[in-house]
């Protein structure tokens, strides 16, 4: 038998349902700009009908919102995470390579060209007037500028290295922080979902954290379903470098330690196993910091430092001794010439301001000790530019024979495997340009991929205001209609209660 207020009951359900849907719509609208937010929909269902005993069928009892689910394509999340690490790596590299380009500052009017042009111009002037002491002073000064050029490039390159090193430490701390937050969220989500609900907003928050984490290191994310004492539960796991970073309620920390070079390496705090990232921002920093360019390594800062060391060393040896990269002696070299004061065996370039005598205590092996960091002009030249060996024996004041030989070193293709000093620098700058271009290109390609995935994600999960407003209108109308229903029922009861049976009175 149908209860008297059945109709009112159904109408109230309609009101509740519409209200709930309006709440959900409101939630969506307010979160239209929340990063990582997935739109939510109320799952609306007709409530359990009553069967009419007379066999007239089932009588509907109204509607219910039985759940709120978020619209999310998790496949896209996984795809995003698997691409984001490459983006992080190449974006980092592109930024750092741009920094290296700024250090070399080529082509410009203050780069290697300028320094070498000035030096050789001074030598040219000296070749025309070898006894002129003011030109000798100029040669000394421009020689110092050449050495300083190497020093400053090397020091700036080293600074990039130490910046990378610090960045690695900070990034590792970030990873740890994200891992902890994900672990905490795992716990909250687990508890919230014990009764079978889905913790939509918490899950969104967790996805957002994994998004960020996936840029720093390469991770594998899985949500496994395990059977715990007959009950199925979801466990969220993040694996990095083959070990768990987060496993359900546990998170594992990474730490940095100093390697023999004084640079940070990364290991797991608990197991002390080394952690070597395959991609991500940390990998970008590591590659630029450590890449020597040999054995398949990235051409990072050490590659450029080595190149500059080779440049400084070979140039110093060729200028001092006339010995080329391949070991052949083609020129008398500065050491074989005679200074204005009759001295011989003076080396123009040494390291740490050593005098020729201190420098040559080790013989030619001394050149292995010259680096771009320490190259300098020798104390002898620094103290007395008259020792610049412009002449060959017998060292007459107007003898410019040695300076003329030294001038030829500028254009000598045999000095380096790459050719003359200019060619060496040309090759280096071109290589840097190409590396930087490549990093930029890869970073932008990866950015395009990320954008495309993000677009698809937003297409599925993003809030459309039009849609929500349409829903707003829709549910407002259904609310209005349900309310009307109440008023209709009210009228019916009015009639039933107050008008029926009034005739007998």
């Amino acid at each position, binding site marked *: 038998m149908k209860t008297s207020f059945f109709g009112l009951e159904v109408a109230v359900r309609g009101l509740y349902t519409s209200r709930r849907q309006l709440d959900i719509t409101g939630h969506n609208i307010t979160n239209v700009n929340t990063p990582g937010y997935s739109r939510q929909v109320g799952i609306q269902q007709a409530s359990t009908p009553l069967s009419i005993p007379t066999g007239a069928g089932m009588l509907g009892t109204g509607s219910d919102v039985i759940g709120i689910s978020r619209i999310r394509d998790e496949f896209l999340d996984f795809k995003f995470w698997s691409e984001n690490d490459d983006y992080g790596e190449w974006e980092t590299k592109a930024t750092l390579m741009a920094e290296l380009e700024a250090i070399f500052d080529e*082509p410009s009017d203050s780069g290697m*060209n300028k320094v070498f042009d000035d030096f050789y111009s001074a030598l040219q002037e000296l070749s025309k007037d070898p006894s002129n002491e003011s030109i000798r002073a100029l040669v000394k000064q421009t020689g110092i500028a050449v050495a300083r050029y190497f020093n400053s490039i090397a020091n700036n390159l080293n600074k990039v290295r130490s910046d990378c090193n610090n960045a690695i430490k900070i990034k590792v701390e970030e990873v740890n922080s994200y891992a902890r937050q994900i672990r905490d969220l795992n716990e909250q989500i687990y508890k919230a979902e014990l009764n079978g609900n889905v913790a939509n907003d918490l899950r969104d928050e967790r996805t957002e954290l994994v998004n960020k984490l996936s840029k720093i290191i390469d991770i594998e994310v899985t949500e496994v379903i395990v059977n715990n004492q007959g009950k199925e539960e979801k466990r969220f796991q993040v694996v990095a470098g083959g070990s768990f970073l987060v496993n359900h309620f546990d998170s594992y920390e990474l730490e940095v330690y100093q390697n023999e070079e004084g640079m940070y390496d990364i290991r797991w705090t608990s197991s002390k196993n080394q952690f070597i990232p395959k991609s991500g921002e940390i990998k970008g920093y590591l590659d630029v910091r450590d890449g020597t360019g040999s054995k398949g390594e990235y051409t990072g800062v050490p590659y450029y430092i080595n190149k500059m060391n080779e440049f400084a060393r070979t140039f110093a040896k060729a200028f001092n001794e006339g010995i080329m990269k391949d070991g052949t002696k083609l020129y008398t070299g500065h050491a074989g010439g005679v200074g204005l004061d*009759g001295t*011989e065996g003076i080396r123009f370039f040494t390291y740490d301001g050593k005098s020729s005598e201190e420098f040559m205590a080790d013989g030619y092996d001394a050149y292995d000790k010259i680096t771009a960091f320490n190259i300098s002009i020798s104390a002898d030249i620094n103290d007395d530019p008259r020792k610049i060996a412009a*002449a060959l024996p017998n060292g007459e*004041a107007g003898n410019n024979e040695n300076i003329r030989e030294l001038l030829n070193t500028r254009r000598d293709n045999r000095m380096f495997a790459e050719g003359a000093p200019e060619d060496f620098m040309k090759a280096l700058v071109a290589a840097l340009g190409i590396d*930087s271009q490549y990093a*930029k290109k890869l970073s932008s390609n990866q950015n395009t991929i990320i954008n495309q995935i993000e677009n698809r994600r937003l297409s599925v999960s993003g809030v459309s205001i039009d849609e929500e407003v349409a829903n707003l209108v829709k549910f407002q109308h259904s609310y209005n209609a349900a309310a009307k229903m109440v008023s209709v029922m009210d009228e019916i009861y009015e009639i039933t209660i107050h008008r029926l049976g009034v005739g007998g009175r």
Partner: protein
Amino acid sequence: MRITNAMLMRNMMQNINTNLGRLEKLQRQMATGKKIQVPSDDPIIAARALKLRTDVSEIEQFKRNVDDALSWLETTETAIANLGDIIQRARELTVQASNGTLSEEERLSIKAEISQLKNSLIEIGNTAYAGRYIFAGFSTDKPPFEVDSSNPALGDKLIYNGKLLNPNGPILADVDDAVIQAYYESAVGNTAGQPELCMANFNKFTTGATPMEFSITLDGITQTISLDPFTTYSFEPLAAGETDIISALQSKIDAAFPPVTKTFSSTGDVIMVSPIKVSRDGNRIKFTVQEGNSIRLNDVTDGTLQTLGFADGAESSTNRKQEIIYQIGVGNNIKINVEGYEIFGKGLQGLFDTFNKLEWALDGKTEYKTISVDASGNIEVITNSLDISALIGDLDADFERLLKVRADVGARTNFVEMTANRLVDSLVNFTELMSKNEDVDMAEVIMKLTTEENVYRASLAAGARLIQPTLLDFLS
């Protein structure tokens, strides 16, 4: 595909950003005038820019070198022209003197003028350009020519860079053969053009027990020279217990390479000529060998040569010219100097000798002597007759020699001038190449910039339209 608001915003921002990025790049190109700012903008342009900058800066340097070379050559040319004038004047005077009879007064005045001209020769020979003596070879810091009148009997002797230019030149006929012999002996090893080795400064040193040795190779024969143990070697003046390094080395070298004996036929004396003469030049030790020979020094025990102030493997070349060479192009070198002996003449008959003979002839002398070495190495003093009219021929020979040098200098000047013109062209070409390589085409950039500006404005306008309306705007 479902389109959401966040998507729209994101895409719009991305597109506006991309447009703005292109706009920024063009703006930067316009502001700097350069196609590229960093190598990664275009590595090939960057690499080429590096090379071209070097080329341009080198050409600029070569231009400066050319200017300096021209000044030097012009100074040389003027000096040579002045010498030519002197010879011409001397010739006029000689012709005048040889024609007919001269009064004593006339003869004296001609002689005075000749002496005057002779002094001018030296003055011009010591011409300096920017404080450097242009005829001095490498020794640009010292005037190359001076006249040695220390032995009046022998007449004036021309010294070039501290050495006798023509030791075998004319000597007054009334000089005693013994004096000539002494002069000859002093001239050996003191003649311009003899190869010598002279290296770093020498400092007093004392040898230890271990032998200090080095070897000398003279024309293929190598001998070892050992310094005495426990001896202090020094330059003069010597303190007590010190040994003179010069005489010590000379006697040891003479023992290794025995001196050649030569008979001086006029006196019958035998003189000894050391193949290697050791002497002192300031604070340095000098080894001099006869013209046509060369020596090489090698260390036997390490450091001996260095102690003496020589380099291991040092070698004197046989006929090394002191050519001052400027670089005026890649692989384009030009010798800019003329060595004094080229114009003054070296050997029996030089310009200075002609003037000596002129003076003697005007003094009424009819004979002069010269030194000659015969095939067997014996030395003879020859007496020659002196005739003023024959000296015209000598003057013509001197003038001829001068003309040759002048033509050579002229040819070099022409070459340098030609190079200068070519360098101007090269500079234009290379500057243009450099500009083409790295400078932007302004018209093109401005056009592109305008286009990009429009695109950017359009994207902003589209964005503004896109964001504004939602369904809400149409609901009342």
